[in-house]
């Protein structure tokens, strides 16, 4: 379970504090894949980032006894001035691996970006970035209980998308997902439950179809 205890999050804007989430109290199950639903700017990425420890709520606490991944998204996670290889090495080292070579090779093999693997990440296209970010989690045998995915498949080409989905599915036995994706069909394919962001709070639906129909009712007028 992932517990949200009185979580609030705001961003300072020119017109004062803008609350993205206000006083969330909810517990999410970690035995199923959850799709996060909400229109642009509702706070999907913020939610994923807070769950992954890349951002902090302004009040309250998010806690879990499970092993949760860092947020796999397009921004953050990779340092632009370092090459992909250096980024991979870094992540391997902070997770306590002494010998990073096999992991480097695995990511390089998965990402298939050729010699750009040794160029600074800031020179990459968003598709290339997502290949590295995704390859990074896959190459390690971290055995995360929950993998946080923020629209990372959306920028990949068809080949890459197929490959990453297959890999995800092979890990479903142990690793569950919390994912953001604007493609409803992808969400239906991968997730069993849905989490709707509405009125600065979260509503959990056991069935993904309920969540999607509720989402469409709520926001497509």
């Amino acid at each position, binding site marked *: 379970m992932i517990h949200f205890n009185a979580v609030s999050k705001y961003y300072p804007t020119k017109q004062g504090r803008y609350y993205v989430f206000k006083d969330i109290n909810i517990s999410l199950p970690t035995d199923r894949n959850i799709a996060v639903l909400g229109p642009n700017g509702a706070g999907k990425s913020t939610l994923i*980032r807070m769950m992954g*420890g*890349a951002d*902090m709520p302004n009040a309250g606490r998010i806690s879990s006894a499970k092993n949760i991944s*860092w*947020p796999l998204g397009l921004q953050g996670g990779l340092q632009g001035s*370092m090459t992909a290889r250096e980024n991979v090495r*870094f992540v391997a080292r*902070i997770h306590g691996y002494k010998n990073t070579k096999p992991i480097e090779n695995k990511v390089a093999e998965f990402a298939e970006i050729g010699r750009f693997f040794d160029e600074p990440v800031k020179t990459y296209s968003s598709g290339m970035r997502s290949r590295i970010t995704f390859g990074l989690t896959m190459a390690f*045998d971290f055995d995360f209980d929950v993998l946080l995915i923020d629209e990372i498949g959306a920028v990949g080409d068809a080949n890459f998308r197929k490959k990453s989905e297959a890999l995800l599915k092979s890990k479903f036995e142990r690793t569950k997902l919390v994912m953001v994706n604007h493609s409803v069909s992808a969400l239906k394919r991968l997730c069993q439950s849905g989490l709707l962001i509405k009125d600065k709070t979260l509503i959990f639906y056991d069935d993904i179809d309920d969540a999607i129909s509720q989402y469409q009712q709520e926001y497509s007028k």
Partner: protein
Amino acid sequence: MLNKRTSLQIMRDTIHALMMREIKTRFGSNRLGYFWAVAEPAIGVAIMGIMFTLIGRTAVYNIPITLFLFTGILPFTLYKNLFNQLAAAIDSNKGLLSYRQVTAIDPVMTRIIIEVATYFVVYILIFSVMAWLGFNALPVNPLGLLAASLLLTVFTIGIGLILCSAMTYWKDTKKLLGFVNRPMFFISGIFFCAPMIPPQYWYLFDWNPVFHVTELSRDSFFKVYVTPVGSWGYLSACALVSFSIGLSTFYLCRFRFIRS
């Protein structure tokens, strides 16, 4: 599969990982930075040494001018580098803070270790070469010299932590620093010492802790030089105050760094 690590082990692994990355950026991928770490103070001393020789001064209180200058410029280099490195420590590692293992203090610690280690290596290297060239390059009071460097490090860490925190409130802090730090070179006693200035003007310099470091370093290094203004008490007080304020502001801001 990995074993569970304690928080201390995680921190050690993280600092190791950051260190590997930072050394590359600090010294350049072609390792030319190692050369500059030694060359920068050496060139500074060479230029000032030539100027002193041209106006007919080859020694200050029987201290060879090169030794005199090195004892001033080396601590100042530590101050300058540590200051600049710490002020940017968080900003230049922002992307890596999104991993939960990496906390805001880790890049700061990493940079402190790198700068202090570099300083010691460069210091020993330069004075070994001076000794080899025939100068009497052994300090009279090595412990005093070490203490001065240590207090300077503590003082600068405090300032650096305050700057990191200030940066989260006001991005332009960095620009202001350039202005503040520029005159430091001229008021830190690198190419002069207190007895060269009339006592009634000491007040212009003796508020500056880095000036005290230079004075005390020379006092500890040379037998013939006794500093009239350098005060261990004042320097320690500055170090203590800046370090405590630095740690407190950094602690208060620890989530702001991650929140971005």
